[in-house]
């Protein structure tokens, strides 16, 4: 276990480094830089000499390999540089914008899991065949709904027409309600699909028949025997979907006017704020790795077959 963990952490570091390097190269390949965008506009009336001075200040004039080394060693020591746009340290920008995004992602994932399990259980427990068929087809519909469209439609309905969620100065929970739903719906779709498929597969296992033969009711068998086994493969998918949550945050935060990493990313792209973008890429990669490492570590807890204990005296 320990050797495995060490090797996983090693791999993660390698992936982080690759993410850093790739994003660095790509960002450098863009024509121009943030200093030019911000100060060349002429509104500020800076002379070319002054701009050149600013470029030296931000390190934008050094050769690429030198910038790479400086930037990489900065990351290693926790110094992410300064945002060209706001002038604040990147670390501060990230720290203020990260918590709302994490809340949004976490709540969305929880809501998606809840939605997926509800769909799967209801489809399997209902004795009403048309409802079962409808629920089994629901995920395909849900996955086809674009987040931005659903977001706009929901704002129209719940905020403007029904007035349930206020648009101006909503409370902290109130402002999260609609975005969470908008993200949860498309995320829940693949989870529900996999869960439905797995429940069907596990139901055919002989141990399910044995549980029925003990006198257990179908609902009891579904919850106590089938669900636990059917959830296992969904765990991996849930880890992978977390990446989509972060990507989805860019759209959702823009549509709903929330502050967060998504908005920050969108702003930084618009102004080519390389330092901030670089930090966002690395931090997103880090979060993604962390979640998937957590999923891997979680597996042995939910599936006893993956625990590496010694098998004790297994003889007939």
């Amino acid at each position: 276990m320990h050797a495995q963990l060490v090797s996983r952490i090693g791999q993660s570091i390698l992936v982080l480094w690759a993410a850093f390097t790739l994003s660095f190269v790509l960002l450098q390949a863009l024509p121009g830089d943030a200093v030019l965008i911000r100060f060349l506009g002429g509104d500020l009336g800076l002379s070319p000499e002054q701009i050149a001075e600013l470029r030296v200040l931000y390190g934008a004039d050094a050769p690429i390999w030198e910038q790479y080394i400086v930037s990489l060693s900065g990351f290693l020591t926790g110094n992410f540089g300064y945002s060209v746009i706001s002038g604040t340290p990147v670390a501060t920008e990230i720290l203020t914008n990260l918590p709302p995004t994490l809340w949004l992602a976490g709540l969305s994932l929880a809501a998606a899991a809840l939605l997926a399990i509800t769909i799967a259980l209801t489809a399997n427990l209902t004795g009403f065949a048309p409802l079962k068929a409808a629920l089994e087809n629901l995920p395909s519909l849900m996955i086809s709904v674009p987040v931005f469209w659903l977001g706009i439609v929901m704002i129209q309905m719940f905020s403007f027409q029904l007035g349930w969620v206020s648009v101006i100065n909503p409370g902290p929970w109130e402002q999260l309600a609609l975005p969470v739903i908008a993200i949860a719906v498309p995320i829940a779709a693949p989870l529900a699909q996999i869960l439905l498929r797995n429940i069907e597969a596990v139901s055919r296992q002989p141990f399910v028949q044995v549980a029925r033969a003990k006198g257990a009711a179908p609902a009891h068998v579904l919850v106590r025997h089938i669900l636990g086994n059917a959830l296992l493969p969904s765990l991996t998918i849930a880890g992978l979907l977390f990446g989509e949550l972060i990507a989805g945050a860019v759209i959702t935060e823009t549509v709903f006017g929330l502050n967060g990493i998504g908005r920050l990313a969108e702003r930084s792209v618009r102004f080519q704020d390389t330092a901030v973008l670089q930090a966002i890429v690395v931090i997103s990669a880090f979060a993604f790795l962390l979640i998937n490492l957590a999923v891997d570590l979680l597996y042995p807890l939910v599936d006893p077959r993956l625990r590496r204990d010694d098998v004790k005296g297994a003889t007939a």
Partner: protein
Amino acid sequence: MTYAAPLRAPETLVPVLHLPPVVLAVENLSVAYGTTRVVDQVSFTIRAGEVVALVGESGSGKTTTAQALIGLLSGNGRVTDGAIRFDGETITAFTERQFQALRGKRIALVPQDPGSSLNPVRTIGSQVAEVFRLHTDHSPDLIRREVLSLFERVGLSQPELRYDQYPHELSGGMKQRVLIAMAIALRPDLIIADEPTSALDVTVQRRILDLIDDLRREYGTALLLVTHDLGVASDRADRVVVLQKGRIQDSGLTRDVLSAPSSPYTRQLLADAPSLAAVPKARPVIASNARTVIEVQGLEQQFRTKDRAAFTAIRDISFSVAAGTTHALVGESGSGKTTTARIVSGLLRPTFGSARIDGVEVTSLAGEALRQFRRKIQLVYQNPFQSLDPRQTVGQIIEEPLLNFSPVPAQERKARVVALAERVHLDSALLSRRPAALSGGQRQRVAIARALILEPSILVLDEAVSALDVTVQARILELLAELQRDLGLTYLFVSHDLAVVRAIADTVSVFQAGQQVEQGKVEDVFSHPSTAYTRQLIAAIPGATLTSRPKQPNA
């Protein structure tokens, strides 16, 4: 081993008054899936303490009958006709809720495959405790004590340790003991054992059947034993019901049915069942100057386990096989017989030792030489349902090995496939079909044809008939004998089934835990086993009571 004897006596000597009460009466039961009738007018009764065997091959409706008894027909299955009376009450039209009160408490099930019959993510203890939780209001403490004493009763060592273990930590035999503990937990009136030992090694099978027998006698439980194995039925049942395609072919006292079957089907079953009691058909005499084609010397294979410890799968295996003969590797699961066969086939390189095929040292072959070597030795696997690509046609499957070697014109390839299909008695109309359209026996013929298309001199048959019904198995064994006679093939026959080995092999190596404990000519090993292990293996084979074979009208 005729535990049943005392129970038979009253039925034949004493009038009806002294018979134990009828626990289960099945009257003209018919079951259909959709519009397909799979059980047709089946009737039988079981009295308290009695063992009735429901015998049949796959598709005979024996498992469907058992499922109908506890209201657990799968999918669109339903009882279309007849009645099931349990303890005097008609349960045919019971609701799900009424059945729930019955299942596990008064009618219990011992399932077929212990490996997949326990929930892998819940502890053994909690799964047995569930029976008590569902049907009693015992306190958790009392339930735990009950479960522990059940574990002790079914012969599980270290009950306290087992309680918190998970299924994968137990062997197949131990899992079946757990499932039996579940079945007897509430002292049911009827236990349905659906092929309870088919997935187990023969020595374990015997211990498990003995255990079920002991418990049945102790508690006076009625037992419905569903089995494909006439030997098991003969050894364990008071009465047998023989099913074919959903209809009863024979029914009555075990000794009557098996010594004087009234239906041709039962006679066929008896003739085809491999049994030690049967006198094996004479094998062609091996010429004493026959050339040795397989020569194995001091094979040892080590595997690294996950914790990097070396595990020795086989050690010091040596045998030789003369051309045109059959050498069998027998042993229980994990004994190393398949590992040995893989080394001989050039699929695995041993840690030590040598394997010479026709004078060629297989263990040092590599690259192109190894590829060319494969023409000489081909494999047929156990499960014909998994060893054929479902998307290829039968013709493509048989032809494929030819495409891997020097080009043969399409015309000639086709001719060879057709000729070979005829050789294995496969209707050439089937060549354009896909495996899904074929029966198990037909698929195994396809697998044999595929192995023969390269005209090898040696076939390695890895449990090649184990997954087949007895009548199909008998036909495939006949085919193998015919091919060997006509083509002079040498067989390396891997099997756990000593009765089959006796019928088709000339020489045999007996494996136990990676060691070859005995080898020699089949007659010698079977009639004078020199080790205790071989004696134990032979004694454990069911069907010792199947001594008197019925006369074959048209054998």
